[in-house]
């Protein structure tokens, strides 16, 4: 269990809550959203009984089968049906059971989801959220541990949000559901039950499109999101024992990308390591590194390094899985390189 320091403006305003896991916080957010707005609908495969990760546990009983329902087992159908609901005034929240099962829906996503506002100049919009568990670290079978965020971030008109702890997950999910544009909300499977945090009861939202500094330091900047934030914080703790203070930036929203927060940190430390779980080539961390090169290269004391998944498919559960996902040890190895430069 990793404790994550929480910063954020809404925290002081929120009422006393309880200490919960991230999946409980997500369940809470969905409940709040369904209660607050009759237009919100929740659906997907096995969502009615609570979902395979229990994110929708109890919500069908509370809000009724018309609003919380199972779909046929068809991902293009789920996304396409949701787009239609959104076009005609609803606020659909679809669950794709695993991000690695999203691919049948790519035509709907690439051709329509993010394009609708643009191709009708605002006449029609798709205020839809697609939630999907992503990433590895919990020994799932093949195909269950993909991290396709870069694919999604490459789609114009679609926001991509990836929370790193229970408090952030609830506030960001509520913001995503109320956002006027389509949002992918990717939930690191590894974080569902491995971390707990105090989460306020009731309704609160956190701003989309803002990165945040989750640990202050001056030696180098670690940039991560989702499941990799905990890994970076662990690396920073280890480094601190040796007197090296690392700054950790949680991107939180990949699109729109908050370059200012990243650049401000890198301009301060002069060194950057970008950490992500997806395949290294073409991953979102490559975009971050490129942005640093474009806008902050004169502040750099060392090349920007990436610590990411290997250039291979994510391996199935078992003995070698832990060697794919970046670890604190691999992050620290990269930190030593940038500090030595």
């Amino acid at each position: 269990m990793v404790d994550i320091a929480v910063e954020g403006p809404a925290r002081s305003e929120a009422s006393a809550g309880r200490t919960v896991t991230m999946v409980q916080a997500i369940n809470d957010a969905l409940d709040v959203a369904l209660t607050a707005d009759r237009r919100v609908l929740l659906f997907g495969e096995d969502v009615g009984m609570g979902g395979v990760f229990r994110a929708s546990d109890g919500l069908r009983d509370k809000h009724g089968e018309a609003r919380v329902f199972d779909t046929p087992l068809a991902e293009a159908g789920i996304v396409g049906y949701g787009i239609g609901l959104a076009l005609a005034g609803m606020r659909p929240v679809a669950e794709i059971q695993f991000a690695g099962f999203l691919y049948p829906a790519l035509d709907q996503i690439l051709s329509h989801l993010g394009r609708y506002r643009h191709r009708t100049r605002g006449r029609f919009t798709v205020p839809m959220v697609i939630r999907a568990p992503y990433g590895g670290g919990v020994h799932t079978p093949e195909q269950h541990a993909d991290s396709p965020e870069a694919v999604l971030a490459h789609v114009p008109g679609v926001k991509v949000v990836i929370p790193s702890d229970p408090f952030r997950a609830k506030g960001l999910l509520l913001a995503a559901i109320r956002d006027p544009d389509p949002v992918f909300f990717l939930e690191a499977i590894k974080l569902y039950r491995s971390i707990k945090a105090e989460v306020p009861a009731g309704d609160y939202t956190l701003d989309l499109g803002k990165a945040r500094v989750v640990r202050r330091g001056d030696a180098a900047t670690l940039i991560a999101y989702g499941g990799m934030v905990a890994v970076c914080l662990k690396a920073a703790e280890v480094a601190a024992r040796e007197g090296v203070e690392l700054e950790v930036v949680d991107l939180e929203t990949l699109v729109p990308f908050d370059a200012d927060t990243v650049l401000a940190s890198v301009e301060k430390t002069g060194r950057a390591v970008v950490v992500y779980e997806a395949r290294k080539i073409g991953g979102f961390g490559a975009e971050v590194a490129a942005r640093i090169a474009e806008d902050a290269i004169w502040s750099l004391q060392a090349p920007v390094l990436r610590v990411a998944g290997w250039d291979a498919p994510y391996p199935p559960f078992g003995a070698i899985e832990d060697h794919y996902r970046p670890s604190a040890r691999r992050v620290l190895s990269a930190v030593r390189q940038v500090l030595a430069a």
Partner: protein
Amino acid sequence: MEPLRFIAEDGGVSDALPLTPDELVRGYRAVFRARLFDERAMTLQRQGRLGVYPPYRGQEAAQVGAVLALRPSDWLVPSYRETGAAIIHGLPMSQAILYWRADPAGWQFPDDLRVLPFYIPIATQLLHAVGVAAAGRYQEEDWVALTFIGDGGSSEGDFHEALNFAAVYDVPVVMVVANNGWAISVPTEKQMKNTRIAERAAGYGIPGVVVDGNDLAAVWHATREAVARARGGGGPTLIEAITYRMGPHTSSDDPSRYRSAEDGKVWEARDPVVRLELALRTLDAWDDARQEALVSEAKAEFEAAVREADAAPEPRPRQIVEHVFEVMTDDARSAWEALEHG
């Protein structure tokens, strides 16, 4: 399954005709307007005043007959071929011209018009129609969604998923397959083993109907029944309209490379617009004077639409980055400034 037909190719009218002469006149005026738009749009395209354009000559009755079964509160979810359907459901011709001119002024359909934009990716629109139709039930609206697809589109996975979703949720949607025999150059028999597409409805547990798509009365009647069933809670219907694309797939296509001239002649004799005019004359509901008045009215409408389209403001490069999100991102703002000021 024999196609439903009330008007024969020679204009002979069945005693069972379920439409009044006044309705047939209304239908004829609509198919005529649709045809005139299509002919003139192709001319504009050849003059370089329209972009790539997908004509629908020969399919007017299949489009217009179905749309006439709708109320203004119902939704139309068209594929790229359904410009005629969109116009009859209320899309101003000037807007249609601007759309096919690829002018941003044509992208934004009027606020009160329930027509979704033309769909290019095949079969994807059906799922949206199912969702739109279902959305009415949450808002105590009794709207129905009408959507179109071609025979080739029935091979796509989204066709199956849409039919299944519509059936499982009993959604008030009507899907019309305009079976024009060709998916660009691929004939129906190479597209599917079972060439009677409406029969597939049984596989989803919903009604399937085959109509002579060049008989406006048959299309209108079948769609009217399907729409009434949908509105009444009876769920979706799949309608197959047998028709023929008399022109090319788009203005860039040359059908003589894959279709025989004989084929064209056979279908020329089945022309839906000519057939309906003959039927009206058989019923003594039409004459030369009315025809001349309709011709000049429709021409004037089109010419006015062209003038209106030509008067649209010049597109601005900055429009490329507008309306990506409701609130422009910082990066988009920088691009907007750069495009605006060069």
